[in-house]
Every structure is written in C-alpha cells, then in structure tokens.
C-alpha cells in the first residue's frame, strides 16, 4: 500500500510540476482505485494534497522568473467570476455532453500544439 501511495504521489507531483496542471486527473482516480475512497472525498482530499505541491512548484517557477503578475491577477479575478457563473450554467447542460465537448477541444488543441 505504502509503495503504491508513494508512486501515485510522486507521479502526481511530477505532472503538476512539469505541466503546471493535471495533478488531480492522476490523483483522484488513484485514490478511488487504490485507497477505495468515495469520489467526492477523493476530490476534496486531492485538493489538500495538491495545494502544497502547487506552492512548491510556484516557488521553482518564480525563482526562474516565469511569472506574469498582471495576466495572473486578471485570470484569478476572471476565474472567480467564471466559477460562480459556471456553477449555475453548467447544471443546465448534461455532464456527458460537456465531457465530450471538452475532450474534443483538448484533443484538437493537443494536435495543434505538437505539430
């Protein structure tokens, strides 16, 4: 069990640091399958685990001057407003439709970024 936890933690951290995102995508299923946590508890616990990792990664990016404060501030304020609107709007669209739409968007973007 401990070995699996270390591997999940390590892999989550590496993705979170390397790509600046995606930690939860690995950690949540990891906790559901390996630890047998319920999905909503796994989501909540994942935030607790990823928050310190994000702070550490941010420090490394900061020390390499990879920070754009004006854009970051705009994104944070827009993000808070967006999440309030999104929480109300998204409930009207079926989750399965949203998932497929996001998935297609991600794949198209991925192809554009690689080639």
């Amino acid at each position, binding site marked *: 069990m401990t070995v699996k*936890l*270390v*591997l*999940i*933690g*390590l892999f*989550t*951290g*590496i993705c*979170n*640091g*390397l*790509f*600046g*995102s*995606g*930690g939860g*995508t690995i*950690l949540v299923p990891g*906790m559901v399958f390996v630890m047998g*946590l319920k999905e*909503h*508890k*796994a989501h*909540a*616990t994942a*935030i*607790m685990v*990823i*928050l*310190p*990792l*994000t702070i*550490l*990664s*941010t420090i*490394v*990016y900061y*020390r390499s001057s*990879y*920070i*754009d404060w004006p*854009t*970051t501030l705009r*994104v*944070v304020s827009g*993000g*808070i407003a967006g999440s309030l609107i999104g929480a109300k709007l998204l409930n009207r669209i079926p989750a399965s439709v949203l*998932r*497929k739409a*996001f*998935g*297609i968007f*991600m*794949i198209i*973007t*991925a*192809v554009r*970024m*690689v080639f």
Partner: protein
Amino acid sequence: MGIGGGVLLIPALIIFAGSRQHIAQSINLISFIPVAAVALIIHYRKNNLHTGYSPVLIIAGLAGALIGSVFAVRLPSDILSKLFGIFLFFMGTVEIFCKKEPE
C-alpha cells in the same frame, strides 16, 4: 464538474493571450492556490477530507513536484509545449472514452 481547469486554461492562454508555455503554466499554478484554499475550508467543514494516507501522498508528491518543476524550468519553451500537447491528448482521450457518469 471536476475537470481540471488547467487543461483548458493553459491552451486558452497560449492561443488567445499569446502567453509562452512556462508563463501559462505558472499562471495556472498560482490561480489554483486561492481557489483551492477556499475549497479546502469548505470541504474541511463538511468533513470531506480523508487524512489517513495524505502525509505519504504529500511527501512523495512534494518530491515529485520538485523534480517536475525543476525539469520544466530547464526545458526550452517549444519542447515543453510539445510534451504538454501529448499530455493533453491523453487527458482528452480519457475524458471522452473512460469517464463514467456518477449514478
């Protein structure tokens, strides 16, 4: 709906705001911090946090985060961009084909 904001925010910043890969990633990291802090307080009050395995996950995760981010800041922007694209492709595929709706 539990989809990571970063996989949408990072490409959007690059395409629409012209941010470089590293900058887009740091913006996503930083903007996660206040949102996560608020969410954490709410989850703590609702008693949703599972603390048993968390210390091991956090310690291993911190080691991984250090490896990943030190590696990232040393990579050239175009290489990191391509790696991110491959990562995004897998995430998108999982989103379409593997996720099941909760009953």
